[in-house]
């Protein structure tokens, strides 16, 4: 079995494309923020949703916001006013963000639920490979593999 770990929605299409190509069974461990449906994955890929924050929760909110999409849809639809408005919004947001000190989220701490899901998969299945679809998940996977006698190869894709 191949285990995929994916904790942000921007990587969904990579996970689907990569795992769907494989002839062997796969389990994709993912979090609520990285919404992916079983219908996207096909029958050979088992989807395991765990309750854990996404590493990139801030980014996710921006990407998923339907309001953001609507605004961008209008500003980029060809109107000069729209284009200028988007540039103004972006400039303003950029200045606000530069003025605000960066938050220091605890997002890089390996999520216990993801670690537990990886470990239980390792115990119950013959795992031949672990694929991280977000480079930030490497730390989590390393944590899960600590003290594991014969760890499978880990790849970033």
């Amino acid at each position, binding site marked *: 079995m191949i285990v995929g770990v994916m904790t942000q929605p921007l990587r969904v299409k990579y996970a689907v494309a990569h795992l769907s190509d494989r002839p062997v069974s796969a389990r994709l461990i993912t979090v609520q923020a990285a919404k992916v449906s079983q219908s996207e994955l096909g029958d050979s890929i088992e989807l395991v949703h765990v309750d854990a924050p996404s590493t990139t929760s801030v980014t996710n909110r921006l990407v998923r916001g339907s309001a953001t999409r609507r605004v961008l849809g209008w500003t980029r639809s060809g109107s000069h006013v729209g284009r200028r408005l988007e540039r103004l919004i*972006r400039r303003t947001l950029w200045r606000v963000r530069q003025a605000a000190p960066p938050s220091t989220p605890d997002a890089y701490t390996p999520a216990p639920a993801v670690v537990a899901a990886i470990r239980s998969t390792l115990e119950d299945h013959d795992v031949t490979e672990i694929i991280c679809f977000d480079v930030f998940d*490497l730390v989590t996977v390393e944590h899960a593999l600590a003290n594991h006698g014969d760890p499978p*190869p880990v*790849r970033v894709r």
Partner: protein
Amino acid sequence: MRIDVVTPWYPDHASVFLGVFVQQQVTALRSKGHNVNVEVAQIFPGPPGPIPPAVYEAMHRHAAQDVDAVYPTVDGATWIPCPVPARSGFAGRADAFATGIAAKRRFLPTEGEITHAHLGVPTAAAVLELGDHPVVVTEHQSTLDFVLDEPPARDRYREAIEQAAGFYVVAGHLRDRLIAAFGPEVTDRIDVIPNIVDLTDIAFRERDHERLDRWIYVGAIAAHKGTKLLIEAFLHHRANHNPHATLTIVGDGAEGRWLWNRATEAGAGDAIRLLGPLPHHEIGPHLSDADLMVHLSPAETFGIASLEGLGAGLPVISLRNGGAEHTWGSIESIAGVLLDVGSDAPAVSDSVAELADAPQRLDLASARRYVEVTYSASAVADRLLAAYTKAIS
């Protein structure tokens, strides 16, 4: 010649269209016997604030055991994961690219005589930071205005223009934009080398152009591509000029469902075919079956799809979106119609009807020859090689 190409966009199994034009350049240069190594800097967005060293340390540990585990190479292109803090802007991306590329090169060094960076910021700014010299840059990003709106990114961009051994854009309007941003002193530093338009799998078909029933559009279904205007113009045309008109769309995107619902509501669901994204070699037959390409994107850096349409013998209706008037505006009289940005659906629809009423002016065979001569892989590769040679010397 040994050439290192660094790009944020390159096709892979999940994104078959991403950076196809970069891949076409690489293929053209290789076909002329040159050794081209590709590095694809891949953005992995993280939370705001510095990326913790633990992330890089984990990457390095795994790369040390198996370099392909972190830096996979497919067909001479190596993907480089670059963690990028949220809110760090385009300059932050440049820093992240520099860190990521430097880390990769510790495991997989490059041996190019020259580096070709795609995009001024983040890519050229990153490789210039690494001390890569000489660096030739190609700019073709549609978000250039947003880059220039961020003061640190703008500063990095100016440095990239000043430090690069050659700075090129894919169409003249991007050069105009950079001159407007940085002043006339950069005029002599920026030249144009266009993208490749690959007509290998696109056959030319002679048409009489008196019937423009079968419209085709190739590209993303998204607001910034003007697909709402496309569907409204198509519906107007069916209602007012030609009830037999059909529309084939090759591509997908966020507005696909809206587009389908709109067409269905208007009773034109049967007249629209949504084919989804297709590999480049499968698009040719659909172009061959069409009578007319309609491409209403309000902004294009280059606009390959319209040129491929001309190559297939299709007249093209397009907006003056930047790319279109610079790439085929000089042959508009024989190739189609360019409308002002802001044209409404009736204006587009009427222009199709006017074209069908007076097709004698069209000469698509000559238009295809123009595309072949100007944008062929061989011609563009020769211009790139001349740019590299000039930069090295």
